[in-house]
């Protein structure tokens, strides 16, 4: 059994940023990693994925991109290499291939049991990621057995998808990217879309992330929004990390030949049933992006940003006519379903009474309990909390809290 001040669980961007902040404050710690540094980026995503944020935005405490292509988007091998370099530069005390089995309380301390030992510590920082496992809707169980089902962790590339039609469920970044690449590979693709938010890759000559960053949208704090629960549920916007693609919204996809339907609402007798709410979901998406772009325009006017092309309005989302409400899953037209229905964190090893009735971790801006912290959740302290660029600020704040709390406990 080993005694240490702090155990960080997970060596992705969040765990490494926390490690750097604790080293800066001379707090003894260890970073336990179930696989290798940046494991999820390396193993648990699809092959073509690139970060949705440009390279200049991958800022971490004491580290930033200084390569030749600040406006590019890292591939999965590139972000893996980037984080490994970071771990090396900050000399993070990472114990790889160390999977945590349980965290329990032990008097005023915590007991962390892993496959390679047991740690007793004052503080635990959970940095195992908001996207630890793909979420599947219950109705996945009603899909006929003849259909191959893939999730966001098992889908890798079009090569593994059988010839024939594919139903992609989910219209966030993952769903639109996968629908587009399957369509390009020659599949007849149907994309079932619920609430979603479209966005252009570039607006008035600048990357959308430049606007989000500079105008302060990403810095908004939890207490500055009306309904933080809703803000935390906002899906990822329809973006792809590819400078050659202006947008990957429903208009782009339909022009490519992807069929769009409403949200997958049910499966009965082998028939997939789609919601009739597509028009409203598209109208909401159009209103949201328009409001965001007008907000950028107002900000640019106020700041007198020079050399910007004129403000633009996006054309409205075109609705398919007719919109299909049903799809036969038993006649062979659809061979594969890809569930692009989001991710959830994995906390089954956290054996502490810190969950609500729905099994969601209860926390106040990352503070779960005395000495117990979480990092990397959507809108945890600020809108950018789940971004690589946002986790550093949160790690600074939580490590300051950890120090202050430790001093209070000692006094």
């Amino acid at each position, binding site marked *: 059994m080993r005694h240490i001040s702090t155990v960080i669980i997970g060596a992705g961007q969040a765990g490494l940023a926390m490690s750097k902040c604790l080293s800066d404050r001379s707090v003894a710690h260890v970073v336990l990693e179930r696989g290798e540094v940046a494991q999820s980026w390396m193993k648990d995503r699809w092959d073509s994925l690139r970060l949705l944020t440009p390279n200049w935005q991958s800022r971490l405490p004491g580290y930033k991109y200084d390569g030749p292509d600040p406006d590019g988007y890292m591939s999965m091998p590139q972000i893996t290499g980037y984080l490994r370099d970071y771990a090396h530069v900050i000399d993070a005390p990472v114990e790889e291939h160390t999977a945590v089995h349980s965290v329990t309380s032990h008097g005023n301390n915590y007991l962390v049991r892993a496959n390679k030992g047991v740690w007793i510590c004052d503080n635990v920082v959970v940095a195992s990621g908001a996207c630890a496992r793909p979420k599947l809707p219950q109705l996945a169980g009603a899909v006929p057995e003849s259909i191959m089902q893939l999730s966001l962790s098992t889908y890798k590339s079009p090569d593994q998808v059988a010839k024939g039609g594919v139903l992609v469920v989910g219209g966030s970044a993952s769903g639109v990217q996968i629908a587009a690449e399957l369509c390009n590979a020659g599949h007849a693709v149907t994309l079932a879309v619920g609430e979603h938010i479209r966005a252009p890759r570039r607006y008035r000559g600048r990357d959308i992330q430049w606007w989000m960053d500079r105008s302060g949208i990403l810095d908004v704090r939890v207490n500055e929004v009306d309904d933080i629960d809703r803000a935390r549920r906002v899906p990822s916007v329809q973006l792809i990390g590819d400078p050659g693609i202006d947008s990957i919204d429903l208009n782009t996809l339909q022009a490519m030949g992807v069929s769009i339907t*409403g949200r997958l*609402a049910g499966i009965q007798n082998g028939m997939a049933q789609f919601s009739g709410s597509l028009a409203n979901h598209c*109208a909401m998406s159009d*209103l949201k992006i328009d409001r965001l772009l007008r907000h950028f325009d107002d900000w640019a006017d106020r700041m007198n940003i020079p050399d910007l092309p004129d403000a633009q309005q996006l054309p409205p989302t075109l609705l398919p006519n007719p919109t299909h409400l049903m799809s036969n899953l038993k006649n062979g037209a659809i061979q594969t379903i890809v569930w692009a229905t989001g991710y959830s964190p994995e906390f089954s090893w956290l054996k502490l009474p810190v969950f609500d009735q729905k099994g969601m971790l209860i926390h106040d801006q990352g503070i779960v309990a005395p000495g117990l912290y979480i990092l990397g959740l959507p809108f945890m302290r600020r809108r950018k909390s789940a971004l690589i660029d946002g986790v550093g600020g949160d790690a600074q704040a939580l490590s300051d809290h950890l120090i202050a709390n430790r001093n209070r406990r000692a006094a």
Partner: protein
Amino acid sequence: MTTQTQDKPVSNGVNTEALIGARGAFAEMPQAALFTFRSTCDWLNGSESRNTINGYYGLGEEHTRKEAFSISSDHPEVFAASDSAPTPPEIALSALASCLTGGVAAVAQHRGIQLHDVQCVVEGDMDMRGILGMDPDIRNGFSAVRVTFAIDADASDDDIRALVAQSQKRSTVFDLMTNPTNVHVVVA
């Protein structure tokens, strides 16, 4: 990103505080949020029937209203009926209209938008060959439903569109018309 500032407090006759209070209470006690609504329908004659609506279950107990409501239904003369009341699908359309309209008022109140006039027209298209069993490819229900709102309010066009969008997002009847529902019918 909010609406324009108001000189007078907005009043659409919606008690937003009570609704927000209910959210807080239901977060603490989710079982109190489970409601069951019911309607009791008596056949009168031919296609005429009358629903009596009174009791409902919610907040953990049965509730009885001060008075019962009555909704009658019939078929029009072109179907050789007595046309004493609207048809069931018209009642369904009116339920959608009322649900969306009430939703517009609630969302407007929450967003600080003063409404002056709200009207919506709801149309549903039906091919009678469906209910007459003449063509299995024609459904019994509406092939399309259109809702057109006319709203006079102290807000921009986009804010009004956002009101109507949010009302759809939170509407019971919109949900049950656009999504499948399991319906169990038994003979007692």
